[in-house]
């Protein structure tokens, strides 16, 4: 115990008030610190969860002329993503399997297997989509033929506009069930 503390006796009426004042200032400072930290955290957290906050637009992208796709064929097409930044390099584009159906309509399948997202390949002679990862197989209409996929191949919206085949951009299909 040092001499300074000795001079302030417990009976001193100003002492308890001092403690209250100190306590008040301490709490006030801690409170201010907490608030400033919380405010500062907003942009930091925002940077982390930004992908969930943005509302994404979709775009129709032309993938070719109607004559490029003979009836009954399935071909790989690629297109610019909706959020293609100029600095994205090779990742500005995604691919899809475009099928020109026998009834003249088009179907655009995502290349991602619904099991774990690996890229499926179209095997023309076998008329099957096959996944290299865990043995998923789909028929030409996108239905599951074999293996672990829980769902049929996801599709993009397709339209024909002035002889141009266009598909609508969509997020990477995620299987969630």
């Amino acid at each position, binding site marked *: 115990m040092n001499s300074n503390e000795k001079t302030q006796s417990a009976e001193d009426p100003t002492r308890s008030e001092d403690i209250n004042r100190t306590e008040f200032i301490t709490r006030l400072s801690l409170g201010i610190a907490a608030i400033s930290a919380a405010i500062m955290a907003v942009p930091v957290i925002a940077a*982390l*969860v*930004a*992908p*969930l906050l*943005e509302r*994404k637009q979709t775009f129709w992208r032309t993938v070719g002329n109607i004559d490029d796709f003979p009836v009954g064929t399935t071909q*790989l097409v*690629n297109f610019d*993503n*909706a*959020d*293609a*930044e100029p*600095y*994205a*390099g*090779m*990742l*500005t*584009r*995604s*691919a899809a399997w475009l099928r020109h159906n026998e009834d003249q309509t088009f179907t655009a399948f995502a*290349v*991602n297997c619904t*099991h*774990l*997202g*690996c*890229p*499926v*390949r179209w*095997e023309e*002679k*076998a*008329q*099957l989509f*096959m*996944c*290299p*990862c*865990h*043995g998923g*197989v789909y*028929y030409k209409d996108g239905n599951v*033929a*074999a*293996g*672990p996929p*829980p769902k049929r191949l996801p599709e993009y919206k397709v339209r024909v506009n002035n002889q141009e085949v266009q598909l609508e951009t*969509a*997020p*990477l299909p*995620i*299987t*969630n*069930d």
Partner: protein
Amino acid sequence: MKRLLKRTWHWLDDRTGLSVLIKPLVDHPVPPRGLWTYVFGSATLFMFTLQVVTGVALSLLYQPSSTNAYHSLEFITYQAKFGNILRSIHFYGASAMIILVGLHMMQTYITASYKYPREMNWISGVFLLLFTIFMGFTGQLLRWDSNGVWSSVVAAQQLGRVPVIGTYLARLLLGGDTIGPQSLTRFYSYHVFIIPAFIFIFVGLHLWLIFRHGISEMPKAGRLVDPKTYRKWYENYLKRFAIPFWPHAVWRDVLFSSIIVIGIILFAWLRGAPALTTSPSLTSIHTSPSPDWYMVIFFALFALMPHKVESIAMTVGPLLTVIILFIIPFLSNRGERSPIRRPWAMFGVICVFVFVISLLLLGLKHPWSADFDAKPLTVAAARPGSSGSTDSTVIHGVQLFYNKGCEYCHTINNYGGKAGPDLSTVGNRLTTQALTIRIINGGGNMPAYGGTLSTRELQTLVSFLSTQK
């Protein structure tokens, strides 16, 4: 001169308090026996240090941008002076760290060192295990070749299976709706800043706890841990038997870690860095994402588990595993520590070990995948002993067998994939009728070919397969 040095040291030590800080750590008493079993933990720490050092060096050469990352990796691997060996030391260091973390954990469980009062040692260790796995995974993505890009898609899909919030989690991982430049910078930030920061904190905690509770003594059958008396008993035990950490114990740690480091350098030198796959693009789809070996274990699990329970298993499985790991010290924190007296615990260890190794071996072979590179079956191979066969059924059958994709999954006389049954002797097993039904309708894990084959093709294929005896 000597005096001057001595005085300088005394001054420095007085003003910094270095020896006050370090000496208790260096001198702290450790149990005298079983010191070789403790080398796994220190070796893991050594590996982490190695990873930090080589990682920092790699960051001098790496371009964390989706346009340039792949090219900078090519530069590191094929051009930079010592770049290849640097990358491969980092790669084999990661592998070693994962193996050592596993061994360290197994040894801790076998000797039940997680029991009172060392529960938090175990829990901080589980955190470190999870961080290590996450580092291994993000590190693999940073290669940003087609394998890295597609592995990110696979990871997003796995997260996507989490009920309700799965899609959001997947989007959060990728940093957007699709893989893009932001995905790479996120993985980079996790791998280089965020997770390492947590590892530093938890390694600090882990080491402090070792110091606080002391290294656990070798278990002895019949010597029970009682929380009421253990601390006192341990204190007395140390007083009677302990030796100072430095230098009586530390040399084993240093020697073991050095052997591992030399091993890694040898591996890195002899085998080089893992080859890069093609450049990253979501449009080059002729790629087969194959994770590094430590992720193959999970990959194999996803291929083999019953597909119906998969969505639940992908969420509940990892969650349950982590929960079990965390509560192990609370399930029993007292009593026997000796493995001889804990037969069920040892049985569990053996099961987990066998399970992990089998998944790894299977995963490396991945027999469930179609083999797209299967060499086309030849007539000579299909009819051994009758080369130059002019039987038109066989000639056309062989062609159909390859063209229609049968061969991706089925083998005939060592030509073809392993996903489906071997058909080398199918003629003995199935009648032509059974074959026809099977091909038209598919079944099990086989697609129905009814809509793809013409009647003639079907007949040819069936008669060809019937000849395979």
